[in-house]
């Protein structure tokens, strides 16, 4: 035979019908049932995972936003408290955080008058008073030796907001303190102290240097900064700039060498 057997096999087997074993359909049916049951579970699991991932991302964002809002709310609350305290005449009189200037000015005043008086201020007492507002302002009584040996302390309160600052140097004028006699008696009422030692519209600081204040004051300052700043990252940005400027400076020094 020389002709290829293609046709023979094609014709013989091309239309050949043969029944498959019965087990074949059983296996196919099982496969279909298994795949039918698996898919819902996979879809449910995938949906659950997506839900968890989305919730986690939302929670993260909320957390970051909450931190910012908490800081600003603390600052605003403190601002509200301090402004309220300052507005209340029956509350404590708030004096400058620059008690040194006040002390100096008063000391100068006292020195100009031959009285024996001391002006003291206690930072510790300031802190404690801040925590519990004082109801009564203390009158400043300075008496000389002759009349009254007792010398009362000048209670100086730290200011809780930059709203009120003391400008004792400008406010206190010598003509207001008149030494009628050797016995000089200075008495200031709350209104006078507020008027003389409290400035309603303080001018902003010339520099952005932080004052040497207590921890609470720092928190208040920070809160105020946050309200003014547009981004919570301003602090970080400032630090970064400082670091970069330091780095540049050090590099310049090295090149100059």
């Amino acid at each position, binding site marked *: 035979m020389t002709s290829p*057997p*293609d046709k023979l096999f094609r014709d*013989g087997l091309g239309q050949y*019908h*043969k029944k498959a074993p019965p087990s*074949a359909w059983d296996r196919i049916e099982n496969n279909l049932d298994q795949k039918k049951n698996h898919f819902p579970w996979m879809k449910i699991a995938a949906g659950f995972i997506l839900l968890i991932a989305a919730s986690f991302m939302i929670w993260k964002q909320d957390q970051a936003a909450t931190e910012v809002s908490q800081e600003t709310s603390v600052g605003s609350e403190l601002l509200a408290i301090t402004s309220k305290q300052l507005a209340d005449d029956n509350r404590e009189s708030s004096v400058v955080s620059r008690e040194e200037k006040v002390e100096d000015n008063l000391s100068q005043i006292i020195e100009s008058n031959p009285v024996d008086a001391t002006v003291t201020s206690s930072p510790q007492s300031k802190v404690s008073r801040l925590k519990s507002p004082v109801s009564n302002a203390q009158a400043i009584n300075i008496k000389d030796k002759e009349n009254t040996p007792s010398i009362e302390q000048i209670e100086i309160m730290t200011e809780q907001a930059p709203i009120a600052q003391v400008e004792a140097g400008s406010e206190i004028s010598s003509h207001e303190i008149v030494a009628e006699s050797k016995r000089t008696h200075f008495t200031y009422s709350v209104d006078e102290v507020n008027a003389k030692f409290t400035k309603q519209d303080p001018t902003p600081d010339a520099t952005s240097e932080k004052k040497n204040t207590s921890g609470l004051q720092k928190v208040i300052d920070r809160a105020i900064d946050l309200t003014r700043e547009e981004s919570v990252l301003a602090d970080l940005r400032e630090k970064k700039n400082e670091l970069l400027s330091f780095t540049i400076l050090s590099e310049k020094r090295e090149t100059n060498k």
Partner: protein
Amino acid sequence: MNQIQGAHSLPVNEEQLIKGCLRRDRIAQKQLYDTFSPKMYPLCCRYAKDPVDAEDILVTAFTHILERIGQYRGEGSFEGWIKRTVINEALNFLRKKRSMFLTTSIEEATYEMASHHDNDPLEEEDLLRMINELPPGYRIVFNLYAIDGFSHKEIAGQLNISENTSKSQLSRARVYLQKLLAERDYSPKHLPHDIAS
């Protein structure tokens, strides 16, 4: 309206069958299997020498067909789509089983003498048996080209061989089968069908 648009319009019963399978109707799925498995099972037997392997190929192929019936877009006949799916599964099976090595020379192939030496008519099972006696490479190429109608170019693409290799494999398969037929003392008149040589 026939929802499955394509180059060929499907018979009404086939269209209903496909719609039922799309709905995952088990009765329709069984009916599809019963309609086409008697043709596809011998095809699997041609590619896989072992009947157990042939059944595995059939099960995998029809599982895929019933799961992915939505992939049939009406291009070509539905039976042709099923046939191509089964052949692909057969090739995948043999590839995994590493049974697709191609014999380079006919001397390497070993074959058994046909059990029949008389003039009994050649039946389909005899032809199937001869096909299964071929070495794997010869068998696959001969099946694809001679019986299933693929070109050498398509075979080369399927098996990742050159067209010349496909042609040489086919040639060797023919020689091998002719030897088997000769030993069988083949005569056209003995075939069950009236086949002109």
